[in-house]
């Protein structure tokens, strides 16, 4: 199980290293505008082929690149009802703080749980390899956080139940 996680993350890391070659590109359609081309999707010559990396049916990662911007969308594993609401709650919590994260997109792309938007400006401000480290660490952290939240709910449930039943003994 841990093996697939390692190779999944390594694959994503390698793809990002290849994809993160962004440069400034002023908008072709409107004068004096500078927009992330991956969001507009208007000029085919500015977009690269999107890459979809699947760990299994439930987890996948879509990487779409363009000349000046890169969009990474992640779908996180949700095995049962509890994991479902925990994931939704946590990722909504993060998305609402997208301003603080800079590279996070406020709304995930349709069909995914969370999305990043990295532009050439981010690459100029931050080291490329550290940015990729951050994305990969983010993905690991989400998984860890969801399973820890689930564990804490189960532990608390067990404690609550035991204390209640002990009163009758």
């Amino acid at each position, binding site marked *: 199980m841990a093996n697939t996680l390692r190779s999944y993350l390594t694959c994503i890391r390698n793809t990002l290293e290849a994809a993160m070659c962004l440069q400034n590109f002023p908008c072709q359609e409107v004068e004096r505008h500078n927009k992330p081309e991956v969001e507009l999707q208007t000029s085919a010559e500015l977009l690269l082929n999107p890459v979809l990396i699947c760990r299994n049916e439930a987890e996948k990662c879509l990487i779409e690149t363009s000349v000046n911007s890169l969009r990474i969308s992640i779908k996180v594993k949700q095995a049962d*009802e*509890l994991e*479902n*609401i*925990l994931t939704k*709650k*946590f990722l909504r*919590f*993060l998305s609402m*703080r997208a301003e*603080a*994260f*800079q*590279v996070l997109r406020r709304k995930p792309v349709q069909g995914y749980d969370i999305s990043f938007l990295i532009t050439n400006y981010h690459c100029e*401000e*931050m*080291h490329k390899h*550290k*940015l990729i*480290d*951050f994305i990969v*660490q*983010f993905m690991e*952290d989400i998984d860890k*956080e969801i399973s*820890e*939240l689930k564990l*804490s*709910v*189960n532990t*608390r*449930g*067990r*404690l*609550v*139940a*035991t*204390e*209640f*039943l*002990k*009163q*009758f*003994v």
Partner: protein
Amino acid sequence: MILLQSPSRFLIQILMNRLQNLEKGVEMDCHSVEFDDVRYRIQFSTKEPQIMVLSMAIPAPPPETVFIGGLPLGAIEAIKLAYGGLVQILDPPKDGYNVTMKLNLSKLPTDEEKRHALLVKIASVREVVLGAPLRVVLKHLQSRTVAPDIDRLVALVHRPKESFFLLPQAEKVTVVFPMRFKDNIDTVLATSFLQEFVEARRTAGLNNAPPCLWSPSPPLELRGAPNQALTANAGFVTFVIFPRHVEGRKLDRTVWSLSSFHAYVSYHVKCSEGFMHTRMRRRVESLIEALDRAKPEVEKSKKTAHGRSFKRHA
């Protein structure tokens, strides 16, 4: 605090304060609200300094419960039994409240232990009033009998417009709680907690605890219950109480535990959500720190001998 406590802290606080200086009269009119729509009103007047006027409002009962004079069955008797010569019930109760009673604090026993026990009992007026019908049923269970003229299925109020059900029999009493929550997240968390009850009883060596079951659909015991009582988004919890769970001092504890069961689960669901928020905030902080590490370090400006500084171009 894991378990909900029966004596209200608000009442205990006021009682302790007043008792320190009972002869000196004060004018007091305090209100308080507790979980599940229970309200208290305490009044003292300078004309009769040792008399405390205590009014209590209880949650609105759904149609299937039996209320007499605005109070659950047996509540008046339970109050008189619990407080003895101290209490005088006022009829009608004050506006907006279900019961008003005058308590003569000068008649408290002088023995320290008995005095404290009675004060705690006064602060537990909620358990006395709301738990009265349940107490009657469980007292009969102590002697392995059933109360005369009681229905097969008894509905008792524990939350506004919601009730739980008892099936009293001679050798056991089955208690069924339909669990309802407004929020979707609350419902999922509560369902996971309630399933733990079944697990905990099995695995934690609590064989003497009441057998407990959870099911998403109404259990067979609820045959004949009104329809709106049969929908519950977090399932139905069933406890089977045996005589050994209500012998001696355990009776009061069992009455309180069962009366406040839904509030107990609700309280822990909310605590859980609060804890998750704290965790998520901490995780966000650590992720932002990781992102900050991605930024190159700001070049430190160096100083010349004359105190002028300059930035070095890399």
